[in-house]
């Protein structure tokens, strides 16, 4: 469990946490995978034991195309988190596969003309260590 003490350094996820391990394994392999209900096909995000639509309990981590739209964003000017150089742009993006899948992410390649909700973005992978790669999204087009 992450508490105040741990936040003295950059907060990184535990790639070995069983609930999320397939996500981080896929990122290291250059894929963005999201759990999908085997019974009804609903994308189940965040990972949960039960599908919110059909109650199915078997979910397969399924590859996505990694394309999304910008939903909202915040340019952070104050260093709320240690280990992050400000300013940075953190955002929520909605996956093309299902807009109910929103991912919090860093936004890269912000165009000089600025950002607009609905702009297309695509995933890129940023290795942090041998064990951990974080997905980010960059503005395209």
């Amino acid at each position, binding site marked *: *469990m*992450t*508490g*105040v003490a*741990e*936040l003295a350094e950059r*907060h*990184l*996820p*535990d790639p070995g*946490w069983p*609930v*999320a391990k397939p996500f981080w394994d896929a990122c290291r392999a250059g894929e963005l995978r999201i759990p999908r209900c085997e019974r009804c096909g609903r994308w189940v*995000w*965040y*990972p949960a034991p039960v599908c*919110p639509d059909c109650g199915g309990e078997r979910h397969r981590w399924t590859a996505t195309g990694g394309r999304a739209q910008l*939903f*909202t*964003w*915040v*340019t*952070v*000017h*104050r260093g*709320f*988190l240690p280990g*992050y150089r400000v300013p*940075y742009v*953190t955002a*929520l993006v909605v996956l093309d596969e299902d807009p*109910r899948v*929103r*991912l*919090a*992410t*860093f936004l890269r390649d912000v165009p000089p003309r600025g950002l*607009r*909700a609905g702009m297309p973005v695509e995933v890129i992978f940023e290795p942090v260590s041998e064990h951990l790669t*974080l997905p*980010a999204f960059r503005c395209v087009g």
Partner: protein
Amino acid sequence: MGLARRIAIVGVGETRYERRAARDLAALRCEASRAALADAGLDATAFDGLIVPGAGYAELHELARDLGMRGQFHAASCFHSGTAVVAAPLEAALAIEGGLAHTVLCCQGVAWGSERRGNVGQPHAEMRMKAAFEIPFGWYPQVVHFAGMARRHMELYGTTEAQLGAVAVACRRHAALHDNAILAGEPLALDDYLASPYLAEPFRSADCCLVNDGAGAFVMTSLERARELRADPVVVLGVGCGVVPDGEYSSLREDYLATAAVHSAPRAFAMAGIEPADVDFVALYDNFTALVIQQLEDMGFCARGEGGPFVEGGRIELGGALPVNPSGGQLAQAFVFSVNHVVEAVRQLRGDAGARQVADAEVGVVTGYTGAQHATLVLGCG
């Protein structure tokens, strides 16, 4: 109908609100509780129901002990933090009607100024999905969550930074009229607001609530007993709670901008038999400026997307059509999970608000918010 007009608030109390108090949270809660009971003309042990949102097991019993309580009391538990404070009259009405208690004390205090040293995000850091999928990407702490909503509101509806600023300016002007408001001596004009640096764009520091120490409390009893205690009890006309069904993580709510006020406000207004147009002032949970705009929409004071223009031109200031947060609220008085809003509403309806008095105030509305939870309280003159 139901629990409308069955109970009243007969006493209110507050500590001084300070950036950092010299006393701990237990002492602050005790002082506010004693003040509320004294304001009701009651002995410090004259309650038999206790609601202390956020208090753990030991803190609950320490408060009862510190107040001198030696008898039995009913401990009501309900929602969390701000929602719990504003929902307390519902819990109290149920307990009183059910014969579990005759007088219920609700106390809320915080010592984040002393205890958290600015690290107010701790509860969020402890949520495992946020720890895995949000914080590593900078989506943290609360100011980022709510700035994200503000940005979305701006993108969808054209809401402007000056409109966010109008909320901050109104609260600061009201705080200047209060002798127990942390920012009373720090005036803010809209130009000052717009010239100040961003924290988490579009939010500046004036968009964010205070981080402080302090406590407030209020005492509830049956309307019949209330009338015996004082000439001007403040009547609970209606109270409603609501939850966002998919609301545990704000990042994933299907209706990203809707608070559970869309459920709590209609319930409270129906119980009270009122419409938004009947309300003389509101005290809305104001952790950030944009949430005030969102609630004004969700509660039906204006339509979705019209909250920005609604707060302009002094409409929400004292003397305007709908004064909002006359105490200065949590943006400018103190952040205590809306208990200051309840106390202020009682004072307004008693006609005791001095320079902040809303003319002819007969119906006031208070809200509490906790992520997926929301409570709306309608109070009226006795």
